[in-house]
C-alpha cells in the first residue's frame, strides 16, 4: 500500500513512488504537484499566498507561490528528478465568498492571485502545467497518486474529477 501524506497549509512534501499526497479542504489555497514519471518522484505544496512581497524571512517555503515552486524543484532534484522531465498539476484557488462591489483586488480574490502567481512561476522555470482544476467558488480536496500520476479532485455536491 502506498503511504499517504497529508500536506498541511504552507507545507511541502516530496516523496518517492508509491505514495499518495493529499491536501484537504482547499479554499483559496492551491494544491500544486510537480512530478517526474521516470524518476518516480512527486512533491506537493499547499500554497496559501501568491508572493512573499514583504521580503521577510521565509519559515515555510510552501506558503508562497514564489518560494514554493523553486523549493519543490530543488527537493525533487535532490530525490533524483531531472528538471527537464518535470510536469505540474494543480487544483484550488477558489473564491469562497463574494460581496457585491468588494471583489476585485480585495483579499476575497486571493485564490485568483494564487493561480496567476503559480502559473507564472511554473512558466519561469519551464515546467509544463499539464492539468488543472482551479477557480470557481467551491472548496476542493485533492489526492495525487504516483501509481498513475493522476490528481483526484473532490468537490462537495459534484462528481469526482480526475486530472
Amino acid at each position, binding site marked *: 500500500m502506498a503511504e499517504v501524506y497529508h500536506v498541511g497549509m504552507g507545507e511541502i512534501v516530496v516523496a518517492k513512488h508509491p505514495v499518495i499526497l493529499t491536501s484537504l479542504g482547499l479554499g483559496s489555497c492551491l494544491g500544486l504537484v510537480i512530478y517526474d514519471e521516470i524518476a518516480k518522484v512527486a512533491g506537493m505544496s499547499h500554497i496559501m499566498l501568491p508572493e512573499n512581497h514583504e521580503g521577510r524571512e521565509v519559515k515555510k517555503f510552501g506558503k508562497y507561490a514564489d518560494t514554493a515552486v523553486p523549493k519543490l524543484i530543488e527537493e525533487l532534484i535532490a530525490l533524483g528528478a531531472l528538471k527537464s522531465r518535470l510536469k505540474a498539476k494543480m487544483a484550488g484557488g477558489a473564491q469562497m*465568498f463574494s460581496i457585491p462591489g468588494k471583489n476585485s483586488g480585495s483579499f476575497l480574490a486571493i485564490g485568483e492571485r494564487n493561480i496567476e502567481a503559480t502559473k507564472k512561476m511554473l512558466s519561469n522555470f519551464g515546467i509544463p502545467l499539464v492539468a488543472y482544476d482551479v477557480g470557481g467558488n467551491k472548496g476542493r480536496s485533492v489526492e495525487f497518486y504516483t501509481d498513475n500520476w493522476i490528481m483526484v479532485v473532490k468537490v462537495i455536491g459534484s462528481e469526482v474529477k480526475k486530472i
Partner: protein
Amino acid sequence: MEYNELEGLSSFHLDVIRETVNIGAGNAATALSQLLGSAVTMDVPKAELVSIYNISDRYASPTELVCAVYLRFEGEISGNMLWIMNEEVSSQLVKVLAKKNLGNISVEQLNEVADSLLLEVGNIVLSSFLNAISSMINCSLPVTVPAIVHDMLGAILDLLAAYYGMVGDVAIVSETNLRITDYETPMNGHVMLLPDPQSLSILLSKLGVL
C-alpha cells in the same frame, strides 16, 4: 503598535478582546433569542493567537460540511466576521425559522428560501454582535452585505489563514459558541470576530488599554 507586532499581544490585551467578544456575543444571543422565541446560551468566549497553519483543523476535520455566513465591517476599525454551523444545524434552523415565519410550506419552497433565511439570521447575529462593540467603543462599524456558503470547513478557514498570513504567521481568533437550547438537539453555531491586523491597535486604544 504596528500590525506585525500581532505576535507580541499580551495576555492582558487578549483578555480585553475576550471581554469585547463577551459583550458582542451577549447582544447577538439576545437578538437570536428574540427572533426565535427560544433560549440561547453562549460559551465562555476565547481570544487567542493561533498559528495560521493550524487554523483549518482547529475545530473539526477540514472536510466537514458546514454553512457559513460572512460579513465584513469597514470603518475606523475593519475586520471580518463569520457565523459557522455544521450542515445539520443549519437545516434544523431553517425548519424552525420557516415554521415560525412561513407556516406550512413545501420542501421545494423551503429549499428556495433556506439560504435567504439563514443569511438574514446570520446578518442579525453578526450585526448585533458588532452593534454592541460599536456602542461600547463609540465608533461606527459599517458592514458589507453578508454572504453565505455551504462548503468544507477547511476551505472557509483557508481564507482567514491566508488573510493573516499576509502579515505574519499568527492569526488572532476571538470566538464563542451560541447555542439555541429549546430544541431536542441544541443548535450550536460558532461566531468568530477577526479584526484586521492593522485595526488591532486602534481597537485596543479605543478600549482604553493602549
